[in-house]
């Protein structure tokens, strides 16, 4: 088992609480910097998955129309907590270059980042990172996580 996988500090536990219906909450820090009610979706390729304490980060390269690419960073949970939501989560669940679709609560300051709601990976599996996030009316992005 990869050693980093065992860096299982789970301090974003509040996000789990979203599963029971109200606005997702962050535990390690306030989620105020994220707009949990106006979720966005992007597609791109995996740049790197940081499997780390206190939060995991998924970095995605998004191709732009002008031929360049934008780099996005998505924060979510921590290893133990992610595994608690979906046992498929691990530091090796995706690799650089994998095509992914990501849904997230964007940073309110407009930078390329957000709170990860879920990511669709090439196997067709949807890895949920924060149950309840991006399913919340009103003002939420249309549609929730894919089935």
């Amino acid at each position, binding site marked *: 088992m990869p*050693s980093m*996988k*065992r*860096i*299982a*500090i*789970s*301090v974003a*536990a*509040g996000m*789990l*609480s*979203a*599963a*029971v*219906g*109200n606005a997702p*909450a*962050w*535990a*390690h*820090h*306030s*989620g*105020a*910097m994220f707009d949990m009610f106006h979720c966005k979706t992007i597609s791109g390729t995996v*740049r*790197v998955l*940081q499997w*780390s*304490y*206190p*939060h995991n*980060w998924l*970095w995605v390269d998004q191709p732009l129309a002008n031929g360049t690419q934008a*780099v996005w*960073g998505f*924060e979510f949970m*921590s290893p*133990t*907590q992610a595994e*608690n*939501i979906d046992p498929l989560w691990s530091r090796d669940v995706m690799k*650089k270059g994998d095509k992914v679709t990501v849904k997230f609560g964007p*940073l309110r300051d407009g*930078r*390329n*980042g957000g709170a990860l709601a879920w990511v669709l990976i090439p196997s067709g599996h949807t890895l949920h990172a924060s149950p309840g996030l991006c399913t919340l009316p009103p003002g939420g992005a249309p549609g929730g996580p894919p089935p």
Partner: protein
Amino acid sequence: MKQQKLMMGCAALLLGCTALAGSVHAQSANGYPGPQGDTLDSLKQLPDWSGTFALDRAGHEGSGYADEPNRPQGKAVPLTPRYEYLRAHADPGIQPALANCLPAGVPGVMLHTILTEFLLTPGRVTMLFEDGEVRRIYTNLAHHPDLEPFDQSYEGSSIGHWEGNTLVVDTVSFPKGALFQNDPLTATINSHYVERIFLRDHDHMEIDATLTDPAIFTRPYTTKLTYARSKEDMVEPECAATSRDLNGTIDLTPPPE
């Protein structure tokens, strides 16, 4: 003959003294009956809590402070009007201590899904948390020590005793301890936390806790937390090195590819 009687008397006295010493020893340092873990011998009579545990999702959602305000109706946290107001008007820009890699403290550290070890050594049960926090529960003390060193504490002073296979922990003086998971509200110097910790079965540890503080709660607030045995091992915490959320900002510098 007189000499023989004298010797027998001395022997009886010695035996009596030995028996008396033994009974005093068996009473344990904290004054409670039964094995108290204050000696290596008594530790052998206590349950096996080896391995790692983590608050499981069911335990997380079913109780505790974390899912407030998502608790089912009728099970709301019994906050006083002042603390209801403080929660409702909390400045979202103020981060809990944990956001800056400081301890969550009591009771907050018990409410996170982090790996935890329970180490039983003579006179002490030590809780090691994967974020680097440590709680020391003294099982060889009948009373709390001088609390002055704890007047700015996150974890407070904890003493414990065993009631069979249940460890009863009494914690006071933890004014920096986080009350909840996702806001900066903390306990007060008068908060009192009592936990009853036991293995419900081989794979699940239950912690029935009562938090009392008239300034915060209108009545003693009880929770039932479930920790599940984990297959993971503890590793070194490195929050300060890896957190991108220090000081209320987010560092979006991409990592090296």
